[in-house]
């Protein structure tokens, strides 16, 4: 079989990979997008909250196909249950609401449907997609391109590409292939667990519960999940507790100020994952290779949110690579640094600032002081006046 030649091979069809693919293909690149799974987005490792702005910014129309429930604001709680409500239906009623001419602030999406939707958009833009295809490695081949080794339904296949895009998530192997320093510190990776539950009422708000007592090193959350369901979860930093996330979630459900609210809850799904509360990778490129999304640690270190940053980063990468390759620039590490510089300017520098804010909070040894600062930071982060609210 002759070896196929692509401009881009993208490993991982999550929000970052498929968005990179869509923008690159729209601008004429020949793109192969592969994913090792049979069903994108599964098993779900994410709570699924994303702002409407984040979708619109990358040309994704909010669609019933992937929306669980619209969101209109936030409820931020301290460890005792005192709260700050930031409800945009009240703050800006002309703009936000469920009525005619009003819009939601954001959505909780079904990652299975959302990831599939984004992949479909990439495919319609001209991307070739292979599911059940795992990346095994890559090798720059000296003529300006590289070979990418894949396994598809048990068949080993080598394809040629100018640039390999690692969009393979937090567990990224692609970055390791290139020898990039991808290792994350145990103090900066939250161990998360969440239950999708029935019989817990919500009010169109993303509720965030701070406090060392409930979620040491992270926070707990209650998100609306559509059809009357909710999502209760939390993330903890393993070095800040002797117990696991499961124990903390059990405590939160049965012992916290929400125990009455949760007393009839019934678990419908169990999901978990790692959320980096870390800085972006310092180097996100190598010869014939860049990283996007969680693989590049494009995750908001305050909120742990990664969908917006994956979509925006994918758009930046797709545009950059299209411009770059359409001009015939050789994809050396030196030239691909331009992608990272562009990303820093558009998004990354703000994420570095957020990382500093986050680090200052968790550097405090006094638990009460730290709790107070985290609560205050979260409440101001989501306020309409926050300088960061568009990340």
């Amino acid at each position: 079989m002759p070896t196929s030649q692509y401009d881009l091979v993208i490993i991982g069809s999550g929000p970052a990979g498929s968005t990179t693919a869509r923008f690159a293909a729209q601008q004429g690149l020949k793109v192969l997008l592969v994913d090792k799974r049979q069903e994108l987005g599964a098993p779900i490792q994410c709570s699924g909250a994303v702002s409407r702005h984040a979708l619109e910014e990358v040309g994704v129309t909010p669609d019933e196909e992937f929306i669980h429930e619209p969101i209109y604001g936030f409820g931020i709680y301290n460890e005792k249950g005192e709260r700050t409500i930031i409800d945009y239906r009240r703050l800006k009623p002309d703009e936000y609401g469920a009525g005619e001419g009003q819009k939601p602030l954001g959505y909780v999406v079904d990652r299975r449907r959302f990831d599939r939707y984004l992949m479909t958009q990439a495919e319609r833009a001209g991307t070739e997609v292979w599911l059940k295809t795992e990346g095994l490695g890559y090798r720059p081949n000296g003529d300006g391109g590289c070979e990418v080794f894949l396994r598809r339904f048990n068949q080993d296949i080598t394809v040629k590409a100018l640039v390999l895009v690692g969009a393979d998530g937090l567990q990224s192997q692609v970055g390791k292939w290139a020898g990039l320093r991808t290792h994350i510190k145990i103090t900066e990776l939250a161990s998360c667990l969440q239950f999708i539950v029935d019989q817990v009422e919500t009010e169109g708000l993303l509720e965030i519960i701070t406090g060392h007592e409930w979620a040491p090193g992270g926070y707990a959350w209650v998100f609306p999940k559509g059809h009357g369901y909710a999502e209760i979860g939390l993330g903890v930093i393993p070095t800040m507790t002797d117990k696991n996330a499961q124990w903390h979630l059990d405590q939160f459900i049965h012992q916290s100020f929400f125990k009455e609210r949760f007393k009839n809850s019934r678990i419908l799904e169990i999901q978990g994952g790692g959320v980096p509360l870390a800085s972006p990778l310092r180097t996100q490129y190598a010869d014939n290779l860049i990283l996007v999304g969680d693989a590049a640690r494009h995750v908001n270190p305050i909120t742990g949110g990664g969908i917006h940053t994956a979509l925006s980063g994918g758009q930046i990468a797709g545009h950059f690579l299209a411009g770059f390759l359409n001009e015939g620039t050789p994809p050396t590490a030196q030239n691909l640094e331009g992608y990272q510089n562009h990303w820093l300017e558009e998004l990354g520098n703000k994420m570095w600032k957020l990382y500093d804010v986050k680090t200052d909070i968790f550097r405090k040894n006094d638990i009460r002081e730290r709790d107070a600062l985290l609560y205050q930071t979260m409440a101001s982060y989501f306020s309409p006046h926050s300088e960061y609210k568009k990340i």
Partner: protein
Amino acid sequence: MSKKEPVIFVIGWNACINCGVCVAICPQEAGFISPFDTIAVDRPCDIACLLCEDICPVSTITHKPA
């Protein structure tokens, strides 16, 4: 730092939720993974930092001597 004894990880598959956080924290080179999105269980880990055991949200990773 004293050299640690290599270990073989044992995963209680009944509790594993395939969240991948063990792979995310693992400092091993590329490929130290199982077909089920966990760290490898079929060969020794000579680093033996055991961070995967610490971070597992359901504490379903243990180890035996290699």
